């Protein structure tokens, strides 16, 4: 007998406002339909009424877990429309900040995912304490802990403060040990492994057909990472290898993200070693901006959650149309296909491994 259960927009599963209507037969899920739109703020339309540098504020609020990445991709789109080159030192600094943001985002993912399977906040608290250290570094670099708005056309609002590299190396050393500890803790726990292995398997063909992106795609064996295949900034200079696993279950996606965290730590250290001297400042906002001629640009970046693509049609003063391809939008759309045939408790395990941020889904 099929019961229809409403997993309402308000639920203690720390995912934001997502409503799912689940059809459940006993303990097996027949169908899950996500109903979204609770956090829709009309950003794409809003940006059409604002001037170029008034919009990074809106962009950051999209993915509020990793705001710097959206800030950066928008500014990159504007730079491409204007034909402005980013200064070399600024490229290094941007990469460092982006990778730090990726580490912070994955730490939050780890905490909330463990919470979803019943860890009762222990993992969550530890991960947040560690994420706090990274946020403190980002605060030193930009002045804010969460919504940075420190990207400017051609560079940044300010350069890294003196002594930043020593402090970063110290924090990264500590994080390496902590990540190793979390891995041991979770992977040697048979209950945890049992919750994730073999759950929510997505085969390679299905992943490509469903249009999945990011660690979800790489967990199914498709090795596509924008940083490698369409490199930007200094990723072609650093030895970067995308991490992938081939099983396609929740455990594979978990492993991919853990490996990505370690990879990010390595990238930051390497970038800090090779950073050139120079000037990283971008154009000031208050200067009258030279107009971006009417152009169509398409910029794609690898966000912590997947690949984001900004398709912008530009007007002299403001974007004529900004189309944002949010990674979690398409990942969540695939939920109903992935969950068929799983148990009720697996819905949350799968949702945790997809790493959804509702601001990104609803825009």
């Amino acid at each position, binding site marked *: 007998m099929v019961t229809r259960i409403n997993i309402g927009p308000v639920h203690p599963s720390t995912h934001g406002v997502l409503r799912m209507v689940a059809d459940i037969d006993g303990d097996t899920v027949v169908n899950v339909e996500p109903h979204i739109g609770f956090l829709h703020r009309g950003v*794409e*339309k809003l940006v059409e009424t604002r001037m170029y540098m008034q919009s990074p504020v809106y962009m950051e609020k999209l993915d509020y877990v990793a705001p710097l990445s959206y800030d950066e991709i928008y500014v990159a789109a504007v730079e491409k429309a204007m034909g402005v080159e980013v200064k070399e030192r600024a490229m290094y600094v941007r990469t460092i900040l982006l990778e730090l943001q990726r580490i912070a985002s994955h730490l939050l993912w780890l905490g909330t995912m463990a919470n979803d399977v019943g860890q009762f906040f222990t993992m969550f608290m530890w991960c947040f304490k560690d994420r706090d250290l990274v946020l403190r570094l980002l605060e030193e670099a930009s002045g804010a802990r969460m919504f940075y708005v420190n990207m400017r056309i051609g560079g940044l609002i300010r350069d890294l403060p003196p002594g930043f590299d020593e402090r970063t190396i110290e924090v990264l050393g500590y994080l390496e040990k902590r990540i190793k500890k979390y891995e041991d803790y979770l992977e040697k726990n048979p209950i945890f492994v049992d919750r994730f292995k073999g759950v929510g398997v997505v085969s390679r063909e299905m992943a490509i*057909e469903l*249009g999945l992106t990011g660690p979800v795609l790489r967990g199914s064996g498709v090795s596509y990472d924008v940083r490698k295949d369409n490199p930007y900034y200094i990723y072609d200079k650093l030895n970067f290898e995308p991490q992938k696993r081939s099983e396609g279950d929740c455990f594979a996606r978990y492993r991919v993200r853990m490996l990505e965290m370690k990879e990010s730590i390595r990238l930051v250290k390497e970038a800090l070693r090779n950073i050139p001297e120079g000037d990283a400042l971008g154009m000031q906002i208050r200067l009258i901006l030279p107009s971006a001629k009417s152009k169509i640009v398409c910029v794609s970046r690898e966000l912590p959650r997947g690949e984001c*693509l900004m*398709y912008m049609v530009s007007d002299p003063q403001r974007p004529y149309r900004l*189309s944002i391809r949010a990674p979690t939008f398409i990942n969540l759309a695939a939920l109903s296909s992935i969950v068929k045939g799983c148990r009720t408790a697996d819905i949350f395990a799968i949702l945790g491994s997809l790493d959804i941020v509702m601001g990104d889904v609803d825009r």
Partner: protein
Amino acid sequence: MKIDRALLLEKARELKSQGYSYLVKITAVDYESYLEVIYMLRNLSERKDETLEVDVDPADAWVPTLIEDFKAADWYEREMYEMFAIEIKGREMERLLLEKWNGKAAPLRKNFAWNEPYEKGD
């Protein structure tokens, strides 16, 4: 590349058989006199992108559905329907994001009267 609406499905299938099986995004732009619907496809094994652009008359706005070949098109098409009032022929449509909408105008079109009050309800 710009193609005609009638040839869209055929061309998409042709591209899929050539390896462009990953649908990146379906989006649309409202240039006042016409709407341009953009399909971005990607070939994962060769790392190449291909874009199909279809011009659509705003008064007669519809495109055929790609959902049989590309499952990822599902939510993108629903978003196009909701935001631009572009009908997708060949599948049943439900609203995706803002469910209780009076259906009078599409938010992302340029002629959307966002400054004026509207009646709520469906």
